[in-house]
């Protein structure tokens, strides 16, 4: 795929509107071409920022009450011999609607949280000072978070692994403070985010999730009341390997 062709499709890509047949080719190109990958990333960030900036105006509570009253005032009496089946159908429809809205909202919230974490990882890499505590020693990095975040966590012993610790910083997801740890692997950099499972309202079930977006691989899981995310542009097997190291450390 040539770059011009890819860039004409990036709008559809960031809107999740690209045909499945084109998706694999485009993502393969993004793996290879840093210019197009940066363009795709910028567009995703722009979309993300527009979503935040455009949610600007809220109706007043008085207007909401007025609207609810107006709608109820127009309610039609619909009692007839067939009211019972209709009521039952309406109840079923409402339950289905509520269930589908709940599923949609959870998925949507989850996707937003993942996109936000991807942004934070990329912003960290782009920063002149990516970490606030610079150390390869887990016994230096872990204590640095004491008093800065409302929980503690374990870091893995990395002596016999390809990973090395670069440092850490305090990060925020849904206004909840957490830890962001930066690891190096060959020429890749990976972030591990740790947040409290309950306090931030992070929209994930207890199940593990692995996903790929824009050539970034991510794994997330819950352990001991904490939600972990590992994200990076390293191969999925490396993201998984770091996840396993973190899991073992958490259980130690």
């Amino acid at each position: 795929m040539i770059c011009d062709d890819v860039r004409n499709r990036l709008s559809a890509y960031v809107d999740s509107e690209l045909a499945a047949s084109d998706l694999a080719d485009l993502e393969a190109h993004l793996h290879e071409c840093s210019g197009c990958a940066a363009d795709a990333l910028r567009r995703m960030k722009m979309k993300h920022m527009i979503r935040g900036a455009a949610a600007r105006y809220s109706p007043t509570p008085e207007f909401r009450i007025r609207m609810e009253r107006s709608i109820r005032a127009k309610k039609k009496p619909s009692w007839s011999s067939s009211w019972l089946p209709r009521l039952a159908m309406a109840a079923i429809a409402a339950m289905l609607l509520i269930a589908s809205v709940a599923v949609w909202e959870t998925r949507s919230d989850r996707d937003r949280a993942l996109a936000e974490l991807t942004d934070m990882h990329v912003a960290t890499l782009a920063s002149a000072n990516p970490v606030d505590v610079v150390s390869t020693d887990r016994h230096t990095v872990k204590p640095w978070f004491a008093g800065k975040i409302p929980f503690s966590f374990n870091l893995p012993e990395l002596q016999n692994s390809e990973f090395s610790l670069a440092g850490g910083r305090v990060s925020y997801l849904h206004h909840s403070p957490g830890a962001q740890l930066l690891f190096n692997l060959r020429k890749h950099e990976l972030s591990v985010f740790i947040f409290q499972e309950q306090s931030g309202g992070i929209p994930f079930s207890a199940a593990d999730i692995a996903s790929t977006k824009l050539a970034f691989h991510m794994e997330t899981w819950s352990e001991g009341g904490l939600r972990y995310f590992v994200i990076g542009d390293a191969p999925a097997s490396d993201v998984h390997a770091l996840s396993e190291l973190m899991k073992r450390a958490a259980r130690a």
Partner: protein
Amino acid sequence: MADTRIDSGSFEELAMPLFAQMYNFAHWLTQDASEAEDLVQETCMKALKGFDSFRQGSNFRAWIYRILRNTFLTSRTGLKTAALSLDDEESGLPEPVASGTPESILMADVDYQKIQDALEALSVQFRQVILLCDLEEMSYQEIAETLAIPVGTVMSRISRARKAMREALTDAKVRSASR
């Protein structure tokens, strides 16, 4: 023949969860709080009146947003903006994007205020398509149904609107850098 009439109870269950976002959308279109309230109220009343014609199982959100958009087009502000129609024919194809220009710089220092300013500066046609796509997260098909335009035109309009946004943000960055 089965009675398909639906009372306002079910209408309320479908419409009220969209109330806040409809108001936000209306405010972006009208740029005025009072006009936005009038627009949402009129939309809801029209939708409730025509709810019998709404086909259950079809897309309620696209349906009520279409009513909102049509109501806006017949409002005072809407009529004014209709006069400022898009000045060139839409091809249905996305615009090629230039690379290597300042607009391709990562948006590290762009804040919400600058984005809001850029959105306000867009034409209503561009603003509404960006809001439906990026804020409301509608699919291209839903946007096409809402705006009663072909999907190809939706793609073209989104592409051009984003280009206009990038240019406005680049200009803002250049202005703030030269101060």
